[in-house]
């Protein structure tokens, strides 16, 4: 589940990163610095994507599932079931959309 989400997010960002110049191994001294920099940038981008996904997921499932009348601190059975379903659906939707987007961009690149 998480692998799919990160894979989808990583795949999306790699399409952008492919347009940066690839680091050359054994080049002049300055070239060795790009690899860790590129790595750090990729890690930062992934972290940002994960944070954004987490915030969006939390907000959405809170709005859809949690009853706004806080009469008890425990989640009722309905709410916990709803939260499970909400998270599962969100990740599934993410995966499906990513797959379709990847197919579309692959089709576009072939043309």
């Amino acid at each position, binding site marked *: 589940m998480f692998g799919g989400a990160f894979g989808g997010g990583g795949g999306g960002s790699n399409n952008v990163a492919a347009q940066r110049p690839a680091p050359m191994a054994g080049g002049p001294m300055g070239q060795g610095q790009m690899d860790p920099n590129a790595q750090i940038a990729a890690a930062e981008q992934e972290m940002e994507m994960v944070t954004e996904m987490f915030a969006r997921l939390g907000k959405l499932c809170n709005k859809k*599932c949690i009853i706004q009348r806080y009469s008890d601190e425990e989640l*009722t*059975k309905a709410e916990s*079931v709803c939260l499970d379903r909400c998270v599962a659906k969100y990740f599934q939707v993410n995966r499906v959309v990513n797959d379709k987007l990847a197919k579309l961009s692959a089709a576009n690149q072939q043309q």
Partner: protein
Amino acid sequence: MSNPFTRPPTQNERDAASKVMDSCAVKTAFSGAAGYGIGAVFGLVLSGIEFSSPVDTSTSTKQQIKTVFKDMGNKSLSSAKNFAIMAAIYSGSECMIESYRARNDIYNSVAAGCITGGTLAVRTGPRGMAAGCAGFAAFSAAIDWYMHKDD
């Protein structure tokens, strides 16, 4: 693994425990047990109020007391069984309906009450089942409304 009796539970253990305790099966079992207890007390009280069949006065006093107590015990046990079944059906069906709908409103109680009333009145045919469903649904809706009206 450290001794689980001498340390506070970990988060995983608490999650697993809460998952078990909030499951429909455990809730049904607990409701059935509570219903059994309440039914036993109710049966005892009812047997005191109701007029029982006249005791055979030819036997000794001790025998008569034994007979009366035995009768009270039987009535209490039968009432306890009925209450336990009713509570288990109600609790189980309400839990399943709530899990299915993923909503928490009064219609869970109404539907559970209808199922319970209908199941308890199976012997009396479809009309009896409809009447039992309507009656018990109204009753459980009223109780649920009263319990949650100040939330």
